[in-house]
């Protein structure tokens, strides 16, 4: 074998990213699912807009909207969407924001777990308020 060196670079090997790379690691899978969840967040926005539109059109349209929502396909879609939204909310509230926010108490930085707990409390309060408004 005659060895010649290239001008500046050797022949590098650039491995290709395999199609199912995101199944290799739990954190990668979670990451892909979280990325996917944004589609469902968007869907909930569209769904809400359709609802508002139906309400604005009058009782007839509203009833039709409710019937449409109760079809098995729609139910399934919304259950799946709810799961993704929960994933989105939970990771956002308890893993991302505790690391992103720096909260100080008497000059000392609160550990992320405390901020996560604070987020949980705030979430419960907001849910309680919503429940009170709707059910009360």
């Amino acid at each position, binding site marked *: 074998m005659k060895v010649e*060196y*290239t*001008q500046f670079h050797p022949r590098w090997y650039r491995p290709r990213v395999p199609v199912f790379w995101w199944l290799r690691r739990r954190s990668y899978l979670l990451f892909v699912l979280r990325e996917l969840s944004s589609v469902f967040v968007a869907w909930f926005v569209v769904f809400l807009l359709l609802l508002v539109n139906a309400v604005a059109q009058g009782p007839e349209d509203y009833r039709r909207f409710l019937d449409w929502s109760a079809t098995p396909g729609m139910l399934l879609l919304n259950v799946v969407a709810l799961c993704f939204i929960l994933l989105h909310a939970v990771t956002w509230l308890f893993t991302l924001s505790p690391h992103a926010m720096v909260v100080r108490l008497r000059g000392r930085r609160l550990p992320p777990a405390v901020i996560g707990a604070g987020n949980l409390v705030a979430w419960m309060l907001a849910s309680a308020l919503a429940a009170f408004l709707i059910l009360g």
Partner: protein
Amino acid sequence: MTLSHDVLIVGGGGAGLRAAIAVVEDDPRLTVAIVSKVYPMRSHTVSAEGGAAAVIRPDDSLDEHAYDTISGGDWLCAQDAVEVFVKEAPEELLRLEHWGCPWSREPDGRVAVRPFGGMKRMRTWFAADKTGFHLLHTLFQTSLRYERIARYDEWYVTKLLVDDGRVAGVVAVELMSGRIEAITAKAVILCTGGCGQIYPFTTNAAIKTGDGMGLAYRAGAPLKDMEFVQYHPTGLPFTGILITEAARAEGGWLINKDGYRYLQDYDLGTPSPTPVLRSMELGPRDRLSQAFVKEVEKGRTVDTPYGPIVHLDLRHLRETVIDARLPFVRELCRSYENIDPVRELIPVRPVVHYMMGGVHTDIYGATPLEGLFAAGEVACVSINGANRLGSNSLPELLVFGARAGVAAASFASGAQDLAIRPAVRAQVEDERRRLERDLLQRDGGKEPISAIREEMRATMEEGAGIYRSGSSLAKAADRLRVLQERFRSVRLEDRSRTFNTELLAALELSFMLDVAETIVHCALLREESRGAHQRVDFPARDDHRFLANSLVYRDADGSRRVEYPPVTITRWPPGERVYGR
């Protein structure tokens, strides 16, 4: 293709980066480049732990720092260099602070200082116990703001080009592609660090193979005081990983197998629960390492598979102190020894740490070879004499890195453009031939690199260790001669141009063998005991014959010649080294 710069710096560690910044700040017209065999942030400066000494407190003075340094160096220091050093060290450390170095702080926001071995005052600045790491990354990141600093990362310099008694550049191999190029320059600054890899147990990284010393020596520049090799008293056995002197400065104790603080038996003072400056565990490194050997002889050390050890006891320091001031010590002990110094004793032994000797320079970093400069551990100015004090090496590489940068810049701006003359071109072709034909395409070599290297290391430890004798050194010299001979038929199997680390290892080994020979040769000729050079057959210091630096030259025929110019004495006449009393 011709690669050319006004100033070329070999080595991208602390000294090299500081020199490069000095060049661009000094003269905006000059072009400057750093050639380094590793990415700059991988350089061995990164491993320094304890701190950097410079007078900053009102109760301290430059004269006291100078006296500690000179007495610590057993009066072999160039006193004019020491005076320059202590004067400029505070300014350099403050400059580093202004560049963002995260020095540890006092509660009021001032820079904090800690005690250190052989220092009469608290003057060691520190960034926890990762001072070298922070210093190197601060310098490297600061250097990135200067687009004019060109870099040849992962290029290995194999030869200095010399034209008519003047340095004309280097020949270097780009590791990634294997191409061999001449890089010409009006001035070259060597900043390649030390050569601890010549010994079997060392705190030094794998890259510390004495390349710069070998380059200068082969080009005809003299090496100075090579017989002075510092053993750090507290390295981890097997790995040789450094446990910083700061561990003792914060109050750690050295104890033998009986739990006895044995240093009190070696004229280093009396034990006290809290650290006393220039006493006991805060004595100088040479004396502490020598005390260890005496303890081994008395049978009071602990035997392990990696040889005898003593223990460093930090248990009486609180966990909060260890975590705040010595976090890296705890991290290293946990990772590499599986022990927690908060609750357990750390096994330690003396390990080769630093070369007091190096390429001979004046106080501007200039070597006797025109156009060649040196700074940092590769150089010997000498501020360290026969024994360096802990925390003097980091300020040294800043002070003399900057000085060499300025001196090289002014030399280069006054120098004529070097036309590449046929003589230089011939040198380049010779070197190319040596690398390509003699090494890369060599057939039939039978001596493995690792075998020669291991035997060299064993030879140095046995013959030129903490204690030496005329006979041990003579035997070492013979063995090294045989190893040089064996190296001629070294075996190289890797024919690839791409990242050929076997070729690199062979070139490094060749430099190490040359440097090892100078160490043994100079140690054999110095018939006295001074600082880190302890001759059992000449146990006393001999100022009459040896108040002189040794300068070893390589003559054209390959033979060695040693000269003894007297030590520069300004204000501190030789006296007794007194510690702990």
